[in-house]
């Protein structure tokens, strides 16, 4: 019984870690993540959300070029919000 509970807890923890790592990887301020967002934005229908997303991702790129990773992340989050609208 104990073994089963520990095994279940281990599986849950592993799954949770994997999800968190995945999300963090997605939102890192890297060229790959910015490319992925560009691809998402290209697929959006034209409109306010797309304009906002484009503006935010351009700003994120600017911030990445200036090595301001915190600001880059902030703009990436805003771009993601616009993409998911």
């Amino acid at each position: 019984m104990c073994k089963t509970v520990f095994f279940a807890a281990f599986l849950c923890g592993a799954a949770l870690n994997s999800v968190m790592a995945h999300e963090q990887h997605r939102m890192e301020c890297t060229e790959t993540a910015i490319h992925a967002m560009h691809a998402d934005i290209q697929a959006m229908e034209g409109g306010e959300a797309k304009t906002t997303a484009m503006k935010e991702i351009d700003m994120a790129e600017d911030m990445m070029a200036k090595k301001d990773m915190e600001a880059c992340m902030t703009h990436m989050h805003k771009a993601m919000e616009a993409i998911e609208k």
Partner: protein
Amino acid sequence: MSDLPASRRHWLFATVAAVALLCAIGAAALYGGLFNVAADVPHSNALYWLLETARERSIAVRATGIVVPDDLADPRRIASGAGQYAEMCSHCHLAPGMKRTEISRGLYPRAPELRRGSDLTPAEAFWVVKHGIKMTGMPAWGLTHDDEILWDVVAFLRKLPDLTPEQYRSLVESAPKTHGESMEGGQMDHMDH
């Protein structure tokens, strides 16, 4: 050639030289691997627009003349289409209540999220489902499915943007046949030959 006036000869020579130069640049770009085919590096916006416009026009022209069945609102068609969609399409195009999948995030160009609606007419949607789209990951389902099943999918697509996650789940559960069952005959045929 020698009968041509000098000004015309110069013009002709310049044109031929320009074409040759363009060909040489094109060949150098092509064989030099200048174009990056990686799916994690998006096209420039200009190239994306060009390809998207080519795709949209190609679909619109080829879908002309397709006769749309008048029973696309039939609940049986919609339910059948829901079952097909859940098995064939939802991994890439997603569905109400579904988070983005690894496939949907890795495809380039991105598969449209059809729960958000589509600009395609029913005839265009049918054409796309049947013939697929080159270099997008969209397969030609017409090679393995008959037209009636594909029209069921189109019937469902018209309904999809209005569905809540619960309604979607319930429709899929009410599908008269699963994709696996409807393909069983085809698979058996394939094994017989």
